[in-house]
């Protein structure tokens, strides 16, 4: 996939930078007087501009330059940072993204409009925005006397590889005033050990300038984090006699400072690497096959009398499972990635709808499989839009009911067992039961007068074509979407719960499996076929009472500790032709707080299952969510529990109604 195209690398990097930039700008919109954020904005913009022009994205570089200049003025305190400026910068950021991703469709006029707004906001310094950043202090600094500075700097060894050119830094220093430059060669290795691409030279510079210290620091703005830099003011003007002793003076503090730095650098560069997701997928596939092969080995070992063979098999089992866990860990990414994107969404929606909304998040560090995270984006966007559009009232309505004008949306994520719960809660008006019910009856989704619990009623929202919004807005109310949310969640083997209190708000909780690739399953036999039931859904296994066994279908209910549990005879569903086992077992499974029993011939045991999806040719078969390969190489189907439970519950509803 990733060819050698360097512009792809740029695109990818720019994408990350833009995402960062978005977060920073959103923070900035809230706390405009934070100078660190302004600096970070400036740095991000500068990097985009620099690498943009390096890779031939001239338009990107040109446009970014203007935004960068504006922030330079802010950084210098010439223009006050405001939320409005952050907003313009956000629009600018979107434009930059367009320029990078779809240069052919990016609208130049839109870019001009943003620049015009920028100009208007930055105001009187409009002309200055055109000036190069480094020249501004020259024009504005009202410095009187020349000061003498001793600048000592040493770049990290890999500085050249990252594109830093020390000569340019020195030239820039020279442009500030009169400079005497002395190279420090003490760290340069002997010729045979010299690596030409490593920067081992340090510099001592005596600088006479009328500029303030910050002007000198600015020269090193983009390399400051990693380098060794000291800027000291020298009291008396000294002639250029200093150079010779300088290295000696400079040397002692260095060894102390340097090792600590390199250690930090090593840690920093070792902490993460970028790997194409495709390779991870391949790795996961191989590990999956290893787990299958290992379970075959385990079966053979179990039948063997050879103690040594058994112990090797156990060893391999341990290693395979550890490898599986590690590999799965590699695919895990914190959900913060996903939550971060929603801040912008909420910000934009609030502006668009004229509502005041605050967004809080918790549990951003919760990790989920990368694939799950990617596929969750759309459903979550939809749910958040719904909460904001339908859930939260307008500021006036809120005040009328005694709430604060500002609505509140909370996103949270947490682990429970092998599931991750993600919830979106708002403090809006809550779901209107009567209206949902009326609408559902109107659409024939619910029988008039049928008894339903709240959670059953709320599930109606996920039916295709259901919408209670009185006015169709740009955002929601067209009746598409919630069913798509439900379908995505089903495909991810997740579920949705809704809890709502009229007047105080709604909480929508998504339950998701940690990973898509491997599940623990319960292997059962029905007739001649073997099937896997996801272990997470299994509540208990009981024997089918004899009196139930003989009964004709139609009265398929079990009494489990006083609770009426419908059961499905899988033999009938799967058309088993072999004679049934004498003692039929019932595996009780649950989904969406509802239970159903599955009658099987035999419960074989637990089984590590690598999920293989069914091909498009079988997508119409709702009873199965996928397939897996058993130890003997046979394919076994994995039961889709949500589907089966819904089926069982329908029978129960029918019985209760009759």
């Amino acid at each position, binding site marked *: 996939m990733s060819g050698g195209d360097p512009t792809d690398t740029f695109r990818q990097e720019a994408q990350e930078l833009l995402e960062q930039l978005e977060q920073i700008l959103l923070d900035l919109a809230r706390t405009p007087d934070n100078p660190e954020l302004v600096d970070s904005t400036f740095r991000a913009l500068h990097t985009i501009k620099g690498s943009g022009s390096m890779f031939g994205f001239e338009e990107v570089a040109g446009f970014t330059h203007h935004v960068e200049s504006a922030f330079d003025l802010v950084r210098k305190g010439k223009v006050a940072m405001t939320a409005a400026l952050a907003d313009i910068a956000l629009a600018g950021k979107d434009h930059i993204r367009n320029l990078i991703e779809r240069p052919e469709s990016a609208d130049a006029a839109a870019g001009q409009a943003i620049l015009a707004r920028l100009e208007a906001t930055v105001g009187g310094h409009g002309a200055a925005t055109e000036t190069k950043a480094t020249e501004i202090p020259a024009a504005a600094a009202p410095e009187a006397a020349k000061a003498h500075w001793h600048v000592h700097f040493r770049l990290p060894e890999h500085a050249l590889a990252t594109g830093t050119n020390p000569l340019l830094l020195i030239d820039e220093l020279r442009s500030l005033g009169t400079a005497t430059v002395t190279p420090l060669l003490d760290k340069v290795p002997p010729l045979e050990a010299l690596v030409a691409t490593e920067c081992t030279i340090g510099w001592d510079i005596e600088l006479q300038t009328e500029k303030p210290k910050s002007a000198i620091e600015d020269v090193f703005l983009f390399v400051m984090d990693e380098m060794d830099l000291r800027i000291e003011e020298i009291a008396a003007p000294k002639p250029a006699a200093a150079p010779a002793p300088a290295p000696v003076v400079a040397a002692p503090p260095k060894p102390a400072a340097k090792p600590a730095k390199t250690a930090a650098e090593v840690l920093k560069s070792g902490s993460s690497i970028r790997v194409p997701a495709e390779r991870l997928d391949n790795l996961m596939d191989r590990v999956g096959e290893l787990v299958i092969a290992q379970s075959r080995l385990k079966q053979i070992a179990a039948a063997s009398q050879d103690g040594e063979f058994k112990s090797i098999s156990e060893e391999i089992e341990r290693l395979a499972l550890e490898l599986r866990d590690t590999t799965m860990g590699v695919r895990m990414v914190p959900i913060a990635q996903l939550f971060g994107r929603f801040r912008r969404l909420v910000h934009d929606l609030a502006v668009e709808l004229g509502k005041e909304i605050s967004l809080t998040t918790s549990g951003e560090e919760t990790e989920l499989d990368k694939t799950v995270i990617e596929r969750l984006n759309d459903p979550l966007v939809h749910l958040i839009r719904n909460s904001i559009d339908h859930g939260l009232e307008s500021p006036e309505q809120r005040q009328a009911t005694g709430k604060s004008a500002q609505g509140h949306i909370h996103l949270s994520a947490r682990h429970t067992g092998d599931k991750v719960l993600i919830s979106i809660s708002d403090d809006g008006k809550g779901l209107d039961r009567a209206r949902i019910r009326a609408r559902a009856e109107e659409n024939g989704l619910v029988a008039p007068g049928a008894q339903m619990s709240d959670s059953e009623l709320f599930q109606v929202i996920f039916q295709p074509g259901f919408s209670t919004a009185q006015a169709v807005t740009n955002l929601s109310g067209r009746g598409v979407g919630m069913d798509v949310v439900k379908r995505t969640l089903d495909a991810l083997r997740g579920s949705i719960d809704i809890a709502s209190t009229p007047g105080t708000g709604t909480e929508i909780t998504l339950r998701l499996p940690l990973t898509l690739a491997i599940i623990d399953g319960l292997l059962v036999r029905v007739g001649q076929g073997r099937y896997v039931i996801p272990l997470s859904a299994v509540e208990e296994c009981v024997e089918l009472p004899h009196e139930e066994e003989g009964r004709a279908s139609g009265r398929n209910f079990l009494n489990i500790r006083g609770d009426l549990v419908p059961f499905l005879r899988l033999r009938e569903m799967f058309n088993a032709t072999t004679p049934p086992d004498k003692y039929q077992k019932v595996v009780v499974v649950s989904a969406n707080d509802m239970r159903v029993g599955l009658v099987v011939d035999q419960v074989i045991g637990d089984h590590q299952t690598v999920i293989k999806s069914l091909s498009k040719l079988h997508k*119409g078969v709702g009873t199965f969510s996928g397939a897996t390969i058993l130890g003997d*190489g*046979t394919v076994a189907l994995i039961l889709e529990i949500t589907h089966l439970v819904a089926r069982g519950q329908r029978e129960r509803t029918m019985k209760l109604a009759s």
Partner: protein
Amino acid sequence: MAIWQGKRSLEVLTLTLQGEKFALEASRVQEILDLVNVTEVPGGPAFLNGLVNVRGKVVPLADLRLKFEMAPTPPTIDTRIVVINVLLEGEMTTVGLLADKVHEVTEMPAEVLEDTPKIGMRWRPEFIRCIGKHSGDFIAVLDIDRIFDEGDRGAVAGQTNVPAQDAA
């Protein structure tokens, strides 16, 4: 209707279904396997009622005899699975084909290939790409993409109380 217009030779794999000889474009064939354990998919389409394990991948197994309304017979020692790639909704999908017997890979020169006649055949003409003549026999070259096309997949195995369709 698929009409054979490409006037060029075709490399094909010949196989037998229920005593009748057919051909497949050889370029679509991935491998030929002995019959392995087949897992039935309850509620699946009748002619696509099985799943097999092909090198760690779960692959649907098609019985074209059912598609062509032939009576299925139990497998024999000659039964093979022909693993082919089918273009399905724009994506190549691996599918296994059950064959009573697999013969050879052979070249059919352009001059022996003819358009599919619209009448006079036992099977639906749209499933046949062209007719070729080989060692004195007429052999139908199958249009496998058409055979697995969505529109023809509706027929569910002739069983009752199958839950496949009441998912909604």
